[in-house]
C-alpha cells in the first residue's frame, strides 16, 4: 500500500508513532527498575544494611526522573485517541475505553500516589511502609502496563466484543476482553523486555562506577543484581514468552508472520532467515542465509508444518511496510540473542568472581544499555506494523481510523511541536540524569531541602 506525504492518514500515523515511541522509552525503564527498588528495600528491611537503602535511594531518583517524563509524555497519548483517532474512538471506544479508564483510575493512581511516598517519604514512613510504597509503585506500574496491553491485545486479536446496531463495537463479555490470551502472552513478553532494559541499565551503572573506580560497594550491588536479573529476563524474553508470542502471531495473524519473515511463497519446512534483504517489488528475499524448518517449528511446533506465504493473502491485507516490519523483527531477535550472550558471559565471570576485574566485559556492559531500548522499540514496531493494515485486526482498517475532520496541516503542525518539545525534554532528561549519576549513590543522604523542588 502506498503511503503518500499528502495523505492525512500517514501524518496521523507518524504523529502517533513518534509520540508513543518516545513515551515508551521511559515506562520500560520504570517498569523494569521498580522491582529492583522493591528488592533493595526488602533487603534493607531484612538485613538493616544501609547500603541497600542507599541503592534504593539512588535508583529512586533515576526512577522519579523517568516517571515524571513518562507522565508528561503519556498524557498526550490518551488524548490523541480523541484528537487524531476520532473515528477509531467512535468505533471502538466503548471497548478500549474500559481498560484505558481502568489504567487511569486504578493503576496510575496507585503508582502516582506511591511514587511521592517512595521518593520523599522515607523518613516519615519508616522502613516497613517505605518498602510497601516501593511495592505499590511496582504493582501500579505493572498493572498500568497490563491494562494498556489488554487494550493493544484487543486491537491485535479482538475478543469479547459485539457489533452494535449503529455499526460500532460494544462490549459483550468483559471477562473475555480482559482475559484475552493475546494480552497475557504479550504482557509476559513485554514485561520481561522491560526487565531486560532495567537490568541492563542497572548493570551499566555498576560497570560505569567500577571502571571509574568510584562507589565500589554500590557498583558491586548493581553489577550483581543487574547481571543476574538480566540473564533471567533475557532468557525469558526469548523463551517461553517470545516463542509464545510468535506462535500467537502464527495462529491469529498468519499474514503478519509471513511478512515478518519476508516469505512470499508458502510451503512446508519453512525457514527462518538469519540474514537476507526483502525485495517487495520482486517478491523475494535477496542473499538469504536460511535455517530450514525453523520457522515451521517455531510457529507451529513441527518442522513439517505448512507456513503460508504472503501470496496466499489478498494484497490489501498485507502489512503496508513489509521491509520495516522485517528489519524491526530481525534486529530485535538478533539483539535478544546478543543480550543472552552478554549476560551469560557476565554471569559466568561473576560466578568465577572475576566480573569486576574483566575490563572488556565491563566496557561492553556499560555501553550495552541503549540496545534494550532499541530492541523494545523494534519489538513494538513489529507488533504494530504487523497489525497493519488493520487498526482492529480484521475489523477496522487503519486508514479509516483517523480524525477525518482534522486537516493534515494541523497534524503536521502538532507533530513539529512534539518533535521540538520532546527534543528539549530529552536534553533536560539526559542532563539531569547525568547529574544524578555524577553525584552518585554515596552522596550524603538527601534531606529534603525546602529550597529544592521535589520530584
Amino acid at each position, binding site marked *: 500500500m502506498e503511503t503518500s506525504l499528502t495523505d492525512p492518514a500517514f501524518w496521523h500515523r507518524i504523529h502517533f508513532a513518534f509520540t508513543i515511541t518516545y513515551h515508551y522509552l521511559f515506562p520500560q525503564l520504570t517498569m523494569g527498575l521498580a522491582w529492583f527498588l522493591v528488592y533493595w528495600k526488602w533487603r534493607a528491611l531484612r538485613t538493616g544494611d544501609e547500603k541497600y537503602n542507599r541503592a534504593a535511594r539512588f535508583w529512586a531518583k533515576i526512577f522519579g*526522573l523517568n*516517571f*515524571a*517524563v513518562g*507522565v*508528561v*509524555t*503519556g*498524557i*498526550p497519548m*490518551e*488524548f490523541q*485517541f*480523541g*484528537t487524531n483517532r*476520532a*473515528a477509531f*474512538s*467512535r468505533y*471502538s*471506544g*466503548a471497548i*478500549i*475505553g474500559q481498560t*484505558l*479508564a*481502568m*489504567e*487511569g*483510575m486504578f493503576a*496510575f*493512581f496507585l503508582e*502516582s500516589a506511591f*511514587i*511521592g511516598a517512595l*521518593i*520523599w517519604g522515607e523518613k516519615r514512613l519508616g522502613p516497613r511502609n517505605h518498602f510497601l510504597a516501593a511495592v505499590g509503585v511496582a504493582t501500579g506500574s505493572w498493572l498500568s502496563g497490563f491494562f494498556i496491553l489488554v487494550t493493544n491485545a484487543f486491537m491485535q486479536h479482538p475478543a469479547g466484543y459485539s457489533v*452494535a446496531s*449503529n455499526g*460500532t463495537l*460494544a462490549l459483550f463479555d468483559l471477562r473475555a476482553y480482559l482475559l484475552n490470551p493475546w494480552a497475557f502472552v504479550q504482557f509476559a513478553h513485554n514485561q520481561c523486555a522491560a526487565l531486560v532494559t532495567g537490568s541492563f541499565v542497572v548493570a551499566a551503572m555498576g560497570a560505569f562506577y567500577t571502571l571509574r573506580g568510584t562507589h565500589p560497594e554500590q557498583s558491586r550491588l548493581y553489577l550483581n543484581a543487574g547481571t543476574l536479573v538480566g540473564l533471567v529476563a533475557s532468557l525469558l524474553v526469548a523463551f517461553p514468552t517470545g516463542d509464545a508470542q510468535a506462535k500467537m502471531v502464527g495462529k491469529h495473524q498468519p499474514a503478519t508472520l509471513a511478512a515478518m519473515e519476508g516469505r512470499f511463497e508458502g510451503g512446508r519446512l519453512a525457514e527462518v532467515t538469519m540474514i537476507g534483504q526483502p525485495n517487495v517489488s520482486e517478491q523475494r528475499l535477496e542473499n538469504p542465509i536460511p535455517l530450514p524448518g525453523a520457522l515451521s517449528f517455531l510457529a507451529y511446533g513441527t518442522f513439517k508444518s505448512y507456513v503460508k506465504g504472503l501470496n496466499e493473502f489478498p494484497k490489501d491485507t498485507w502489512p503496508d511496510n513489509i521491509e520495516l516490519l522485517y528489519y524491526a523483527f530481525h534486529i530485535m531477535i538478533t539483539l535478544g540473542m546478543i543480550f543472552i550472550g552478554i549476560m551469560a558471559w557476565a554471569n559466568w565471570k561473576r560466578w568465577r568472581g572475576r566480573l569486576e576485574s574483566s575490563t572488556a566485559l565491563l566496557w561492553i556492559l556499560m555501553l550495552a544499555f541503549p540496545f534494550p531500548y532499541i530492541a523494545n522499540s523494534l519489538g513494538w514496531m513489529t507488533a504494530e506494523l504487523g497489525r497493519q493494515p488493520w487498526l482492529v485486526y480484521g475489523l477496522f482498517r487503519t486508514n479509516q481510523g483517523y*480524525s*477525518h*475532520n*482534522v486537516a493534515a496541516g*494541523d497534524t503536521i*503542525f502538532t507533530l513539529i*511541536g512534539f518533535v521540538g*518539545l520532546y527534543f*528539549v*525534554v530529552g536534553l*533536560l532528561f539526559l542532563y*539531569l540524569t547525568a*547529574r544524578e549519576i555524577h553525584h552518585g549513590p554515596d552522596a550524603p543522604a538527601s534531606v529534603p531541602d*525546602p*529550597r*529544592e*523542588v*521535589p*520530584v
Partner: protein
Amino acid sequence: MIALWYGILAFMLTTYIVLDGRNFGAGILHWIVARNQPERRQVIAAIGPLWSWHEVWLVGTGGVMVMAFPRLMAASFSGCYLALFLILWCVLLRGIFIEVGGHLSDRLWQEFWDSVFVFSNVLLAVLFGAALGNIARGVPLTRRHILSAVFYQFQYPWECRVARLVHCPDGAVLCPYFDRSRSDLPDHEDRRSSTRTIGQTGSQTLVGSDSGFSVNHITHLVCASGTFAGDRVPTTCLVYTSDLRCECVRDRYRYPQPARTSRCVRVDFSALRFVDDRSGRAVSGHALLDYRIRPATNRCGLRRARCQCHHWHGLVVSGADFGLRLSLYHSATLLGQSERSQGQPRILLRAGGTWSTSLFWMVKE
C-alpha cells in the same frame, strides 16, 4: 447507567480541576506572592510532590470519556484539535518545570523556568476557561457530529447548530440544537401544514451516548404524511437509525424528509439550507442526526442558545475567572504549609491580598 457514568465523569473532571487548580494557582501566583527565590521554592514545594497525582485525574477523565462517551470524545477532541494540543503542551511544559526548575540553584536557570511556569499556567487557565466558556455558550457541530471549534472562531451565524455539554435523564451529553429565537423560522406554519416537514425541532435535540439518542422537547415536530402513511407516529417521539433520506424544497427553506424502516427514522439535516437574512448567503453544514423514538416526557430544561452574546468578552472573562478561582485554592493550600517556611507570614499576606482582590473582582462580575 449512563447517568452514573455522567456523574463519574463530572466528578473526575471536577476533582481534577479542584486539585490541579492548586497547581494553576501556585503557578500563576508564585511570581506575585513570593518575591525572591527561596519564597518561590517554597510555593513550588507546596505542589511538587502531589503534582503527578493530580494529573492522574485528567488521565482518568480521558479514559472514562473514551469508555462511556466515545462519540463525545471523538467529536470534541478532534474538533478542538489545536486548542487541545496547546493545552497538552502547556501541561507538558508545566510538568517539566516542576521536574527541572529546582534542580539547579543557578539564578538564571530558575528565573527562566519560573517564567515558563507562569506562562504555561496562565495559558492553561485561559484555555480551560475558553473551553468552558465555549461549551457553556454552545459550539457549532459539523455534519459528522464534530465540534467545529477552531479556537479563534468566536462568533457563529445565528442559525448555526450549536452543542452544549448537558446532562439529561437518558444520558446524552452533547446537545446540538437550533436557535429558534428568530421568529421568521416557519415552525408555526409547519405545524399547521404538516405535509412535507419532519424533524424540525423546537429547540433541542440530543446526540451523544451510545445507549441511543433522544430527541428532546420536540414540540414542533411534524411528520410528513406521505412518508408516514398509515403509521401514526406521535409527533413528540422520534428515533432513527435507518438510511433513507429525501428532501423537498419549500419556500426558501429546504427541509429534509425522513424515511422510515420499522421503528427508526433517519433525518438528514445536511439538506437544510438556511439563508442568512443579513448577508443573504446560504448557510449550510448541519449534521446528520439520528433519532430514536421515545416519549418526549423528559425536558432537560436547557436554556435557549444565545449565540451572539459572550464573544471575546465571555471567553476572556471565563478564562481569567477560572484562573483566579483556581488561585483561591492555592491560597488555601499555603495556609496548610506553615510548618516549612520562614517567610510564611509575608507569603500568606500577599496570598490573602490576591484572594480578596480576586473575590472582589468576581463579585463585581
